[in-house]
């Protein structure tokens, strides 16, 4: 059978990323033709700025060398733009007359720089800043001439100006607005930026409007005009190449004079042997329009990146999605993923738009801006300003969400703000701390709370678990060219254990590998086996009715045949939570502790912690434990921090027999080993204590009876204290109850551990029944919505207490439904795994296959 034909118009970043995604998931589906107007293979356009600045070379920025196309059997046509789409015949035609038929067409024609329509704009020496030809023209000019004028003080303009300055030109930046980068920065930050750039030798003319570009009075110095337009590297630049608005910048021939000065509307002039127009870009839609596709400042596409002709897709800067045409790569890469998913005929992804963030790629300047910081109706600004230190931070908040951030001088928290912004996290509960950043600095073992990452000496220990120092991490990132957290983990072990230093490591990554921020994925995949985030995986499991692990991996295009030890336990949990009484648990996807129902010890033996309901015990139980300890020669018996007894050093082969004896005495597993309900700590309460207001012990037992046996995203602990003296430490538990005279205070989202977090007060209720219902509902909400290995504390910080309140307090019906779902899933969960194994389940787990001698 003939393969379907796919034609890509535009050999640039968005289109090629789409093809790469497509080849990964459906390598054989299409016969592919790529047609590009530029005479080059696909390169990293972002890095044109460092190339101009002399920090990188053109060779280094090629993304797909010619042989890549050959290896993938792709027909590549370069150096000639497509000039016609025949939608009826389904074929395209280039200016050179080459044709290609398609079943699917992908438009990724990018943008053109906007050339101001002023007199003289057509003079030689006037360029945009968009492609290799432009950069070569600028480099060439910097070799021969002195004065450069950059029109436009935005991101591109400043990067161009910086590059030309580094190449020895005298550079003036002309800008219409009262301050630089007015779409990304507010005035105070822009002033700091301007000062820094002035210190680097750039000149600025603000609020100046260009009236005309004047030709140089004498024929330009240096080489002849014709020579000047040829490109420095010798890569030929075909004349038909620039399908841009306005005249071709390099069209000068013969004796036509070169640009010599810029005149402004106020009559003043500055000398200019080179004029770079960086006043904006225009989606390149001429081709699509001529083919009758609906365009509106971009080729209009829907959430699957389809144009009005369903056979034709569009991605990248040329596309207009929900009225927005993006001009940065991160959103384009997201579009690419969705478009590839549909081209591959899988058809389940949706593109819902992106929030973008900006950094300026000028070495030595820290600037970060995201979202909408201009504020407007109903928004408030939180501002920190220290002009002496050169630090300025502005956060814009609207309806309890962060909507914009603008950071200058200290951009360490940029990624965190970006996450909050993108996820629409409610910041109501930590608004007062927002400006001071995520509290990752200062976790135990990480030194001074106030020390900023950049200022830390190299010898500072970042990862307390593996003893990894800042210097080790920075060196590894540089030398091994690491880009992702996973890579840093693999190479240095930092953040690979308890993970409390993850924020620090990410900060170091951003700081060290920083330059190309587009690499920072806008969402975190579960692990290296997939591109999908935890939330996407869960959604797919639910919505697609995926009920087995291999099915989920297949459907979600896992990159590895059977996952890894990070994703399999997560998937197993998600499946189990989504299909409680139906899913067949996959023992091989569980960490050994959960598979063998004990905690593995450093010598390979196991610990055994039977459940002691609410911390209560009695002589009979204690005697049974003593008997087991003696009978099996248990080397150590200890009271745990969770109010029960731990038998350490039990041999794996002995576990079923130990459990049989314990089971006969009435014990069930304490799940001290699981991402599961652990303990319910209680205090003595009203039964004995002179201050006790209620029966905290009895309530604890009821709660434990209700919740034991349930699997969770992470460990889950409860406690009930009989009065506000809180002897059971209920305010550092995932769900804690503090009894008071007038009822029960319900506290959520606390933990001791690596980073202590005190609970938030969720509600106050009157009866034990309500406590049980709220507990079941909260527990289920956590089970259904937290990511695997996310404890309730970080989960609440991510989604916000207000959200939890909305689900549990405001919505009584929703609360009851959650509680009901929890109770339903408990029906099959409350089977004691120890007894089952004592009775012969999973014997292979506990017995050698063969014993020799």
């Amino acid at each position, binding site marked *: 059978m003939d393969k379907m034909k796919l034609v890509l118009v535009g050999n640039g970043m968005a289109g090629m990323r789409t093809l790469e995604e497509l080849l990964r998931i459906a390598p054989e589906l299409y016969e592919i033709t790529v047609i590009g107007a530029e005479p080059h293979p696909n390169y990293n356009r972002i890095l044109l700025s460092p190339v101009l600045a002399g920090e990188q070379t053109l060779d280094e920025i090629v993304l797909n060398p010619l042989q890549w196309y050959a290896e993938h059997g792709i027909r590549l046509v370069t150096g000639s733009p497509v000039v016609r789409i025949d939608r009826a015949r389904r074929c395209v035609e280039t200016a050179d007359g080459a044709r290609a038929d398609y079943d699917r067409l992908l438009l990724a024609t990018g943008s053109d720089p906007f050339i101001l329509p002023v007199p003289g704009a057509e003079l030689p020496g006037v360029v945009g800043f968009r492609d290799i030809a432009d950069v070569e023209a600028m480099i060439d000019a910097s070799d021969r001439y002195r004065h450069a004028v950059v029109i436009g003080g935005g991101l591109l303009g400043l990067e161009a100006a910086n590059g030309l300055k580094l190449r020895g030109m005298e550079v003036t930046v002309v800008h219409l607005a009262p301050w630089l980068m007015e779409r990304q920065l507010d005035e105070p930050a822009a002033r700091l930026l301007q000062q820094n750039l002035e210190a680097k030798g750039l000149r600025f003319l603000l609020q100046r409007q260009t009236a005309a570009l004047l030709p140089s009075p004498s024929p330009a110095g240096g080489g002849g005009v014709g020579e000047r337009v040829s490109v420095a590297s010798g890569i030929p630049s075909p004349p038909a190449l620039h399908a841009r608005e306005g005249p071709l910048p390099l069209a000068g021939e013969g004796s036509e004079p070169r640009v010599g000065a810029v005149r402004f509307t106020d009559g003043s002039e500055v000398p200019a042997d080179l004029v770079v127009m960086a006043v904006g870009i225009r989606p390149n839609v001429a081709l699509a329009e001529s083919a009758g596709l609906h365009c509106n400042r971009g080729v209009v596409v829907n959430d699957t990146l389809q144009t009005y002709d369903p056979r034709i897709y569009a991605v990248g800067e040329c596309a207009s999605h929900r009225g927005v045409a993006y001009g940065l790569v991160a959103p384009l890469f997201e579009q690419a993923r969705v478009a590839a998913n549909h081209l591959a005929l899988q058809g389940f992804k949706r593109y819902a738009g992106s929030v973008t963030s900006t950094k300026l790629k000028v070495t030595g300047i820290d600037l970060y801006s995201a979202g909408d910081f201009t504020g407007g109706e109903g928004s408030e600004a939180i501002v920190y300003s220290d002009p002496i230190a050169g630090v300025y931070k502005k956060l814009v908040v609207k309806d309890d969400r962060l909507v914009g951030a603008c950071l200058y001088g200290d951009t360490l928290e940029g990624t965190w703000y970006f996450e909050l912004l993108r996820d629409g996290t409610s910041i109501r509960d930590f608004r007062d701390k927002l400006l001071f950043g995520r509290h990752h600095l200062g976790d135990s073992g990480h030194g001074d709370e106030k020390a900023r990452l950049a200022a830390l000496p190299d010898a500072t220990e970042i990862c307390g678990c593996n003893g990894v120092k800042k210097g080790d991490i920075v060196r590894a990132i540089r030398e091994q060219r690491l880009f992702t957290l996973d890579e840093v983990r693999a190479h*240095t072990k930092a953040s690979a254990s308890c993970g409390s230093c993850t924020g620090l490591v990410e900060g170091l990554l951003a700081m060290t590998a920083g330059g190309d921020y587009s690499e920072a994925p806008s969402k975190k995949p579960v692990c290296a086996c997939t591109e999908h985030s935890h939330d996407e995986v869960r959604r797919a499991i639910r919505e697609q009715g995926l009920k087995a692990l291999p099915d989920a991996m297949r459907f979600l295009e896992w990159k590895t045949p*059977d996952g890894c030890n990070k994703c399999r336990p997560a998937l197993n949990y998600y499946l189990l939570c989504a299909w409680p009484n139906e899913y067949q648990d996959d023992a091989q996807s569980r960490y050994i502790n959960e598979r*063998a129902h004990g905690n*593995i010890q450093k010598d390979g033996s196991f610990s055994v912690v039977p459940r002691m309901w609410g911390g209560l015990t009695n002589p009979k139980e204690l005697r049974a434990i003593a008997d087991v300890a003696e009978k099996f020669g248990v080397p150590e018996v200890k009271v745990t921090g969770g109010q029960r007894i731990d038998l350490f050093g039990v041999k794996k082969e002995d576990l079923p027999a130990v459990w049989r004896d314990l089971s006969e005495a009435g014990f069930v597993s304490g799940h001290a080993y699981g991402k599961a309900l652990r303990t319910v700590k209680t205090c003595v309460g009203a039964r004995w204590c002179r201050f006790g207001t209620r029966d905290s012990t009895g309530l604890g037992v009821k709660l434990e009876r209700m919740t034991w046996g349930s699997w969770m995203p992470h460990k889950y602990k409860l406690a009930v204290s009989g009065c506000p003296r809180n002897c059971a430490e209920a305010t550092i538990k995932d769900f804690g109850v503090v009894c008071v005279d007038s009822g029960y205070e319900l506290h959520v989202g606390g933990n001791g551990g690596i980073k202590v977090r005190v609970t938030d007060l969720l509600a106050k209720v009157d009866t034990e029944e309500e406590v049980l219902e709220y507990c079941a509902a909260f527990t289920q909400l956590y089970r259904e919505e937290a990511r695997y290995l996310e404890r309730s504390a970080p989960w609440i910080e991510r989604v916000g207490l207000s959200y939890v309140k909305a689900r549990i307090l405001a919505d009584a019906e929703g609360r009851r439904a959650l509680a009901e779902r929890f109770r339903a899933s408990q029906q099959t969960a409350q089977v004691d795994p120890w007894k089952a194994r004592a009775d012969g389940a999973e014997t292979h787990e506990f017995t*050698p296959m063969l014993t020799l001698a």
Partner: protein
Amino acid sequence: MNAMNDAWLQVGRLEDIPRQGARVIATAEGAIAVFRTVDDEVFALRDRCPHKGGPLSQGIVHGKRVACPLHDWKIALDTGLAAAPDAGCAARYPVRVEDGVVRLRLVPDEGCPGGHGESP
């Protein structure tokens, strides 16, 4: 090596080992872990992680690797080598499956520095 150690010893049937799992063969010289991958390939390694002696048989098997349960080193089942940047090696034992029967030789392959001779 004596003749007995050189022989292919019948240790059990393929289905005795869980897919994506392992079983242990207890010997006087310490345990040997016999792994079965998702596509039914079988490998045998000394059941001691080159890091701190963790029991590899207890790890999660994925692809042709096992993740040590103690500190998460990844050990390649076919070579016994720890995945970079970690370095170390667990001795390999020759193993084969015929008609569903798993056979093993108790003499480890050469080529694992420090892999054999060292007692558990």
